[in-house]
Structures are given as C-alpha cells and as structure tokens.
C-alpha cells in the first residue's frame, strides 16, 4: 500500500473510532438514565468503557489480525502519551491542579498497576492467564472505586439542558440507532487504523510496534488531548489529571486484560519494551504520582519537562 493511502487509512480510522466511541457513549448514557442507574456508576462504567472502546477494538482487532505486538504497543504508547503529552501540553498552557479528593489514592493505584503489568511482561509473553490476572485486578479496582465514592447521587433537574448540550438521544429508536451505529463504526475504524498502521510501518521500514507506540497511540489519545487542551485554555483543567489516571488504569487492566484473554496467540513483548518503553511508562506514571502527592499541581516547568521527554522519545523511536 502506498504511504499516502496508509496515512489516509490512519486518519479515517481515528475519525471513525472517535465517532463510534461518541455515539456509543451517548447511547449508553441515555440507556443508563432510562434504567435509573446513578450517574456515578455510569461515569465509572459506561463512560469509562465508552472512552476506552476505541483502544479496545483497535487492540482486539490487531491481535486477531495477527499483529499482537501492535496491541501492546498501542496500550503502552497510549499510557506514555497520556502522561507526557495529554498532561504535559495543557500544563504549559495553564498549570493543572490535581488536588481533588481521591487523586492521590488513584495515582498510587496507577503506579501499582503499572508495576503489576511490567511484572507480567518480565515473566514473558502475555498468555491467557495473564489476561485473566489483569481482568481480576480490574474487577477489584472497580469494586474499590465504587466503595470509595459511594455517594448518593441522582440525575439533577437540570438534566434536560445537560442532555441537549450533550446531544443525548431521547427516544428508544434513537438510543438503539446510536448504539448500533456506534458498535458498527468502531470495528470499521479499528480495521482502517490497523491496516494503515501496518502498511505505514512497512513503508517507513520500522516495526509495527513502533507505529503502535507513536501514531496509533496518539490517534486513540487525541480526544483526551483535545478536551484537556480546551479545558486548559478555558483555565478549568481540574479533572484532566484524574481522567488520565483512570484511562491509564483501564488501558492496562481492562484493554490488555481482555486482549490477552481473547487473543489466539500469547501477546509477545516486542524488542526494546523491557529496556525502553515499559520503564518509560513506569517512570511517567511515577512522575505524575509524585507531582500529585507532593505538589497537588502540575506546573508549567513540569509540563515543559513532560512534553520535551515525549518529543525526545518519539524522535528516538523513529
């Protein structure tokens, strides 16, 4: 496949994934609302899974299509990009506070889960049992998150305005359409992204894991970057760090867990992961956790440091 076509596939893949994820999230929120599920539970499950759905389908698609190294590269690359880029870049625009309740605890969990993941990778290729271990850890994390924030909440009176702002579907037919179209769009996007990534790797003469670590990871992290950056320009980036932490934990436990449990072959640990990428992921997580614990804020200087590390990392990889 010629390079421009591969780039077009990557672009199309990212856009379809974003649209699919968006439709799925909006349909799911409406559905949960109708079922009377409290918003907190929706936030922890439906929205968390919905925002991670693109990464999940890309990782699954890659593993099933015979590129399991692309799956792990996507997750590890996403986690690195989440901290260095998604936190780093907006922090330069406006310092990000992260002193909301539970942030320290969540940052600690993120580091612990990163250590667990790296430990599994050191043992060897991620087999089915490793996937189940990660999923079990995810189950515990969910349980813990529920109990830690068990506050009675209900959909407020202003929910109708909120619904219109979000563009939530309001009839059963619309909800069904959103869910069906979202479910259809995600694999289309994943397929395009994986095909584009593999072709681009061939065209550039690099391994598919390098493309997974950089372009695919960046593509699937774009929405987080966009929302965080907009929030930073509006100077209201309070929730960004929490979202990044949640996204990283879901990536490692749920996405890698499901992919390893479903993949027909064990997920191999590509060359250079144990020496470069996984240590960097761990270091990035630890740095963010340190910032949250010590300072409660990610300032401009820290943002520059994070972003510079990301640029150096990508340049070295390519």
């Amino acid at each position, binding site marked *: *496949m010629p390079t421009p*076509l591969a780039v*077009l*596939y990557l*672009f*199309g*893949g*990212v*856009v*379809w994934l974003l*649209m699919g994820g968006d*439709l799925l999230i*909006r349909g799911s929120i409406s559905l949960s609302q109708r079922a009377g599920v409290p918003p907190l539970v929706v936030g922890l499950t439906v929205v968390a899974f919905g925002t991670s759905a693109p990464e999940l389908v890309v990782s699954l698609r890659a593993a099933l299509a015979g590129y399991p190294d692309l799956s792990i590269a996507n997750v590890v690359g996403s986690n690195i990009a989440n901290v260095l880029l998604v936190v780093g870049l907006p922090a330069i625009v406006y310092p990000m506070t992260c002193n909301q309740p539970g942030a320290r605890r969540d940052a600690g969990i993120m580091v612990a889960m990163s250590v667990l993941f790296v430990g599994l990778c050191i043992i060897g290729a991620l087999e089915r049992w490793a996937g189940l271990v990660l999923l079990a850890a995810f189950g515990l994390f969910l349980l813990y998150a529920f109990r830690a924030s068990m506050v009675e909440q209900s959909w407020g009176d202003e929910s109708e305005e909120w619904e*219109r702002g*979000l*563009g939530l*579907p309001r009839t059963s037919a*619309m909800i069904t359409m*959103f869910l069906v*179209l979202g479910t259809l769009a995600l694999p*289309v996007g994943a397929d*395009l992204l994986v*095909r584009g990534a593999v072709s681009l790797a061939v065209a550039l003469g690099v391994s598919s894991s390098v493309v997974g670590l950089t372009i695919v990871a960046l593509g699937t992290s774009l929405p987080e970057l966009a929302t965080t950056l907009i929030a930073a320009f509006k100077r209201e980036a309070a929730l960004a760090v929490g979202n990044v932490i949640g996204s990283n934990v879901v990536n490692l436990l749920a996405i890698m867990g499901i992919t390893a449990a479903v993949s027909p072959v064990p997920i191999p640990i590509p060359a250079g992961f144990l020496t470069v990428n996984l240590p960097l992921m761990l270091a990035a997580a630890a740095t963010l956790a340190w910032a949250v614990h010590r300072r409660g804020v990610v300032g401009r200087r820290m943002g520059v440091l994070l972003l510079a590390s990301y640029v150096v990392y990508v340049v070295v990889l390519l």
Partner: protein
Amino acid sequence: MDLRTKLVLTLVAVSLGSMLALGTLAFTNAETLITHRTSVRLSSLTEAKAERVELVVRGWNEAVALLASRTQLRRSLAAWNQAGSEGDRQQIRRILEDAQSSSKLVEGVGVFDLEGDLVASAGAVDPGWNTQIDLATAAGEVRFLSFTDEDPLRASYSAALRADTLPVGTLGVLLSAQDLSDVAANRTGLGETGEVLIATRSASGDTRLLTPRRHEAPDTDSLETRDGRMWDTLAEAEGSVTEELIDYRGAAVWAASRRISSAELTILVKFDDAEQRADTDELRGRLLGVGFSLAAFAILLGVGLAFMFAKPIHALAVVAGRIRDGDLGARADADRQDELGLLADTFNSMTTELERRMSLLQEFKTFFDESRDMLCVAGTDGYFKLVNPAFEKNLGWTEADLLGRPFVDFVHPDDVEATIAETEKLAGGIPTISFTNRYRCRDGTYMRLRWSSHPDPETGNLYASARVLENPHR
C-alpha cells in the same frame, strides 16, 4: 437528535452512498477487465505450450523418419529377408546400435521382418511393438503408436522400411519423452498456482496423465475432477473455461486446452480461481478502505458545520433565556450576513417591539393602579374580570372578594333591577354615559357610584369607570 449527529449521519450516509455507487461501478468494470485479461493470458499461454509440444512431436517424427531412411539398414533387411544369414542380422544390429547411441532422443530401436518377427534391436524394447507394428504401413510413413507405461516416459513409433519401393519390414522406435515433461515443468507465467498438464488417452479410453502435477493431491492417479467434468469438457472441446471448474484438489480453477492429434496429446493449462480473485479481492478491500477513509472527511465536515451552526443558535438561546428572565435589554449578535443573521436581526427587532410594548403596558398599569376612580373590566357573565386598587380602597373588599362573586351581589337591593337593565343595554352594544347605583361596602354601608361604561363588541367585555358620589365614610 442533536444537530451535530444529524449532520454527521446525513453527510456520512450521502458520502458512503455515492462512494458505494462509484465503487461498485469501478469494481464491476475492473473485475470484467481482470477476467478478460486472465482469459487472454490463459489462451496465449496454452497456445504457446501447444506450439512447444508440436515442435517436440515434429522432432520425434523427424528422428524416426531419419532412422527409417538409412539405406544400409533397408538393404541389409532385404538381404536378411532373402537369405536369412546371421551376418545380415549382425549387420542390422550394428546399424541399430550405432543409430541408438548416436541420438540422445532414441532410447530403443527394433527391426521386424515381413512376418512381424523381431530381427534385431538395440537399447530398450517396447513389448507393445509385437501387437502394434503394422505391416501395411505405407512407404516412408511414420506412425505414432503410444506412450509406454513404465518410467521414464517414452513415445513409441513405427515406420515402414522399403527397398526399391518394395516393403522389407518395419522399424520400431522408442523415443525419450523428456522434452514433453520439460514443456510441462516450465511454469513461467503461471503464477503461484498455475500448472500445465499433458495427457493422452490410454488404449482403454481412459485419460492418462503424462507429466507430473504441481500440487499434492490425495488421489494422485486420477485427473478427473470431482464431478468428472474438467478434463472431459476441455478434451472434447478445445478452448477456455473460466467458470465452475473444479480440479483434482477440489479447487476452483480457470483452464484452457489444446489437442495435438498427431501424438494423441491434450495440453491443459490452468490457474486457481483464488489466485485470480486475489487481485479483485484486494481491489474491493482497497475501494472499501478508501471509501470509509474518505467518509471520515464527511464526519469532520458534519461536526464542523454543526458547531458552526450550533454556536450562533446557542448564543441566541442564551439571549432568549435572559429575556425570559426579564432582561429586556439583551440583544443577539446580528453581525452575520446569513439566515442566522436574519434570524438574530428579527429576534432583536421583536425584542425591541416587546420592550416598547412592555413599557407602554407599564405606563397603562401605573395609570390603572394609581387612578382615584374605580376602573374595572367585567364579563357578560356578570363577574368582574379585573378591578383596580381604588375598588379595595373605597369599598373595602379585596380583589379576590370582588372577582369571586357576581357584581350584582354588591349592589343595593333597590338598585339591582336598574343595574341588570343597564347591563343588558350594554350587552346590546349601547354605552353607558352616566348611571348611578349604590354599592355595598365591606362594613355594610352603601356607597353611591356614578358609572360610565363601554362594551367591546368583539369580546363582550365591559370597560367601566366609577366615581364616588356619596361616600358614607366621610
């Protein structure tokens, strides 16, 4: 559904639909083209192979003819026929050995006398010669007999031997068929799966494959297809068949054949259908991929357009909300030159008009509230609809008291009849200039009032004002 989703879904549907139509057209044309190209390639390959095989067969014929034309051999055989001396037989054998060793093609040769008995031979001998050597063979005619059953494959020929136009015997020749196998083994231009098969009909009429197959197959002896069709179809009628052919592996194939009747050979060239389809499948995959990728632009365009439209609409909604909450001074931004600008402009003039009327209304309300005269609106049902504060001030009744009962309830019993008569006059459309009656105050005293009243013919409402003539409280 929100504007953004509507726009995105519509644009995606339109773009995918049009690309699907274009893609289907392109794909159908490309598929036809690829099919045609493959057919042509198949035919020309088969033709080339047939020409090669014909050359081989011609070479065999020439080799046999050359042998049969040896004068020394024919003379020695004639001599043997006459005298039967051992010397002649030795001479014949020497000639045959010399002929066999000097040609790579000739693997065996034998000479038969007029009775069909073997006189001498060199190299390999075909047992079939005994039954197949035809004594009536015309002068100099070379005849193909059959292919041998054993390995290596050989072609068996016969030729008549004559001396001075009289038949003296027959020559049997076994030729190496290696050239035939070489033609089949050369797979240039046949791709990953294509193969050349050369076969002949055995004595029993069965098809016998002469050259090795390219692919492993469980049933290596039979060339018949699963439904027995491929070979027959092609062997009976020369040409190309590109549909519904299944080969010995059970794989769908495209095939073409030619016959070389001089050696009873059939040449079959075939490709796997899957290999041909790989091209069209890749094309289809790529068309779909490009189509969906390009539809991404429609998604982005939809989102962009929706934000572009939604932003001013949202701003307008915010302004409308402020006006609803009482801020009549709020105005929408009407700088745009499009329909949304027109909407904002109309919205603003509507608000200006509303503000003007509201201030007018406010003035009338002040006038109504502050008037010392008693002002009211009454319905034809006999109830007050609206009374000004002067009523409560003078009569002592609250507004709710006054609106809750028919107004004649408050009229002095002696004035009720006249009041009803006056009200009926009003209902008939005649205004009251001056009418006097007594109204009961809350403390039971009566107040004399002079009314002037005007009926509204459309609603039937009475607009009335009353002035106090006698105030019992003063």
